[in-house]
């Protein structure tokens, strides 16, 4: 009897300990850019309001941005991006949710090459992806940068045949952000 009680109590406190011990790093001003290099046109846009959270204890990671926060040098392009391609009214955000594969302790200072495996949601379509990047930790903050590629077609983003020469088939996405300990 006592043993069971002790186990219950132990489990109870263990969990409390673990919840209190969660180390979260976050930012709401992460920068994510994309670059499309097509024969006729080069298109670049940046989102400087990307929200991101890393749980150093469980090594889980989430990232979310509003499509309307992507800034283009050409505002007409920005409007078309929202209205015709990403349909931001229907699908207001793009997000990533995943877990860092490597066995590392991000609370310890150092440079860590990382791979995050998880799911990427763009234009309402969710796909499994693995994103490679680097994290430089000082213990108090994490500097994260990453790079990957997306194919608009895979996320059901229609490109009319009239403009195929202006939009690349594969688009480079890069991100850099500094997450601060909560």
């Amino acid at each position, binding site marked *: 009897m006592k043993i069971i*009680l002790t186990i*219950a109590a132990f489990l109870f406190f263990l969990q409390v300990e673990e*919840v209190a011990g969660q180390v979260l790093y976050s930012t709401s001003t992460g920068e994510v850019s994309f670059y499309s290099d097509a024969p006729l046109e080069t298109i670049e846009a940046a989102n400087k309001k990307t929200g991101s959270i890393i749980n150093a204890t469980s090594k889980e990671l*989430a990232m979310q941005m509003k499509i309307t926060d992507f800034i283009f*040098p*050409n505002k007409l392009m920005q409007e078309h991006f929202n209205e015709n391609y990403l349909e931001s009214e229907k699908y207001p955000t793009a997000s990533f949710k995943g877990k860092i594969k490597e066995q590392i302790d991000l609370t310890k200072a150092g440079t860590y090459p990382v791979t995050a495996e998880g799911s990427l949601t763009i234009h309402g379509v969710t796909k499994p992806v693995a994103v490679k990047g680097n994290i430089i930790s000082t213990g108090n903050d994490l500097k994260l940068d990453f790079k990957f590629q997306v194919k608009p077609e895979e996320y059901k983003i229609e490109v009319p045949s*009239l403009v195929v020469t202006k939009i690349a088939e594969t688009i480079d996405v890069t991100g850099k952000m500094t997450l601060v300990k909560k």
Partner: protein
Amino acid sequence: MITSVKKQITSGLLILGLAWCGMAQVFAQDDLLQMLNEEQAKETNYTLATFKASRLINGQTIETISKKHLNFWISHRFGAVNSGFIANFFGLDEARIRLGLEYGLTDQWLVGAGRSSLDKTYDLYTKYKVLRQSNKFPVTVTGLAGWAINTMETGYVMQSGSEMRFNSNVERYSYWGQVLIARKVNENLSLQLMPTIIHVNKVEDPSISNDLMALGIGGRYKLTKRFTLSGEYYHAFSEPDAFRASTGKAYPYHDAISVGVDIETGGHVFQLHFTNSRGMIENQFIGQTVGQWQKADIFYGFNIARTFSFEKGAKHKDK
């Protein structure tokens, strides 16, 4: 007895402990995304692209253009559709043309100028977006103020058939002010109200007031991503009876009604429409529309807008 109570308490505790364990797990995983969502939900989300262009058909929309962007407008109104096939190819043999430029001083404030071949009129206007529709406010409100000068020779015959004599240049001026109120109801439907006041320095008959109040209503419905239906109606609070009493003739002007489509192709917006108004500036189409829909006395027309960006980084992108 006591043992069984103890047993119950123990198992109860155990379940509690396990439940807590489960909750903690839920907390740990579910959900970092949720936390981001909650943070981003606090931000103001402004409504984008209530209309495709800064003009609906003849009149303006609440849309301004972005800072350092320039719009070039080419507008045509052909001859009356009922003017005959042999005589006028249903109106396509001739056209009234307006060329216009618009420049965005800020994302909310633009200035524009144009020249119409109808009454050889130059116009200047400015438009400022005062309030923006968002998840916290229901409508967008834009103010418009404009001025035009009619440079026809004095004594010319107006569309209405009246002769117009100017004694000084000031008599050639017209002014207008408009409050544009629009709501993007959903992704496809946008509606707009346009209370308007127009002041014309010289009118053709003393029975016509120099000041004219009008109320416009307009809207658009997106059929596909790049194809939109649009319509526009301006009711002028004029006094036809006073004109008839004074001149013995019927009042020559009617409410302006226009319907059309917008077709968007990359950097251009094409607006094709039918309207009973040949004028393309406010004092002309709100105050001096001569055509009548019931007589098929209407005009086919188009507006083409081309946008140029002078923003840094936008240059040299076109290969």
